[in-house]
């Protein structure tokens, strides 16, 4: 569904992504793990069109989207839950969700999807009139995930959904990610919490200073010695 071929990205003179290639198949959860500064967020921002590509190609269902603007990519079905949540704090929960459906015109389906989001995250329904800035971290994470779902994405890009959340909430968020995937949305997940990510991912890639150094199924990587040492705190 999503294919990245030899992607290169620079920040000024810094070569942030070096010849990255990865594939996400329809229906999969693929995770990209790696240390801080490895280029995980850059990868997602480049797929979304927020960062410019210097070389390589991004294909969505075989069609090159490498030079499309971010809004055009949203229209094609790419939706990102950005790092640090990035809700619109002064707007209400409802307005945030409504903005998620900004490009859609099918009013009836939008309503249905809104109901679905409220069903999946009942706390959001309860707080729909509150400004989003008043929500707790976990609630804000649910809000951005709901907001991203409101665009009816074909592929959902999640950037560090567990960041700053209590362990119990982390588990809840991950089980929701699994649910969303089982309901038919393909997912590319970026995480520092490698063990959690590997436990729900079908396949995984390991990113180290801008290059992919390893890939395999979630289970394979979780068992690999190097991964154990570097990311899972094992011996």
């Amino acid at each position: 569904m999503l294919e990245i071929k030899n992607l290169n990205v620079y920040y000024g003179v810094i070569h942030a992504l070096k010849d990255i290639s990865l594939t996400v198949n329809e229906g999969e959860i693929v995770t990209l793990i790696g240390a801080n500064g490895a280029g995980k967020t850059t990868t997602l921002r480049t797929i979304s069109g927020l960062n410019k590509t210097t070389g390589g190609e991004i294909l969505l269902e075989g069609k090159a989207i490498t030079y499309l603007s971010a809004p055009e990519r949203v229209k094609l079905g790419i939706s990102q839950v950005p790092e640090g949540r990035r809700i619109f704090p002064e707007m209400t929960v409802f307005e945030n969700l409504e903005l998620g459906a900004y490009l859609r015109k099918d009013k009836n389906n939008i309503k249905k999807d809104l109901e679905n989001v409220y069903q999946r995250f009942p706390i959001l329904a309860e707080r729909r009139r509150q400004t989003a800035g008043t929500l707790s971290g976990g609630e804000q994470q649910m809000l951005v995930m709901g907001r991203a779902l409101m665009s009816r994405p074909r592929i959902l890009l999640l950037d560090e959904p567990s960041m700053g959340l209590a362990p119990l909430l982390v588990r809840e968020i991950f089980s929701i990610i699994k649910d969303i995937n089982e309901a038919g949305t393909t997912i590319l997940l970026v995480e520092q919490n490698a063990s959690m990510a590997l436990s729900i991912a079908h396949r995984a890639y390991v990113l180290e200073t801008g290059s992919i150094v390893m890939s395999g199924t979630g289970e394979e990587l979780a068992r690999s010695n190097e991964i154990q040492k570097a990311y899972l705190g094992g011996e």
Partner: protein
Amino acid sequence: MEQFLQQVVNGISLGSIYALIALGYTMVYGIIKLINFAHGDVYMIGAFVGFAAITYGKMGFFPALLVAMISCAIIGVVIEKVAYKPLRNSTRIAALITAIGVSLFLEYVMMFFVGAEVRSYPKVLTEKAFHLGSVVINMQQIYIVLTAIALMILLQFIVHKTKTGKAMRAVSIDPDAAQLMGIKVDSTISYTFAIGSAFAGAAGVLVGIYYNSIDPLMGILPGLKAFVAAVFGGIGSIPGAMIGGLTIGTMETFVSGYGNSMYRDAAVFLFLIVILIIKPSGLLGKNTREKV
């Protein structure tokens, strides 16, 4: 007491005009973090367009107002595309200096075409006035206040109820996140300039009618005062700009009425200094984030 009420009436009329100009400052600042110093000159152009529409086009008040607003909206969008957009990713000081350049450009291009002399505005409203005791409210003041109120209600409606308005708020809060919603940042910025400039155009016509005289440099001082109003209200905040405009207008008429009209400008700028010392974020402004 009558003197007091009369100054309140005058202050509200003048303040509504400042509020209309201040809205443009604050909206543009909210969305691209630029103090658009050319904004006062867009207001001047609005006054001249209204003048031409009434004098040569034989239009009435409302058609002339509309023509001035539309012309200024177009000019605002062109200014943004030509002067500010190429600097979107450069330093803020570069954009600010460009804004001052645009301001001088508009002033002297206008002077080249229409001359530097002061023109008197054609009479387009009746001279009728209402006497409440010894307080006089004239027709112009009623038109000014009602027009300003109608435009502000319209703005609130646009910003809170329409898709474009929601996009404007989203971009002003977080441009990257807005793009991830599918919002086109460039066109949203254009809309913001169009609306802000249209309001300045309306203010230009209203001031022409109120003070009865216009000239190519008329935008400088009201522009700066509206800027003070926007800062006082909290730059980036729409209700703040409205409150700020009314405050500055009332303050000015009170200084003129009770003190010496020579000091009214000094009073406004002294007020700016005081705000910047005591509460730099303004009445409704936030320290880190701003609304449209």
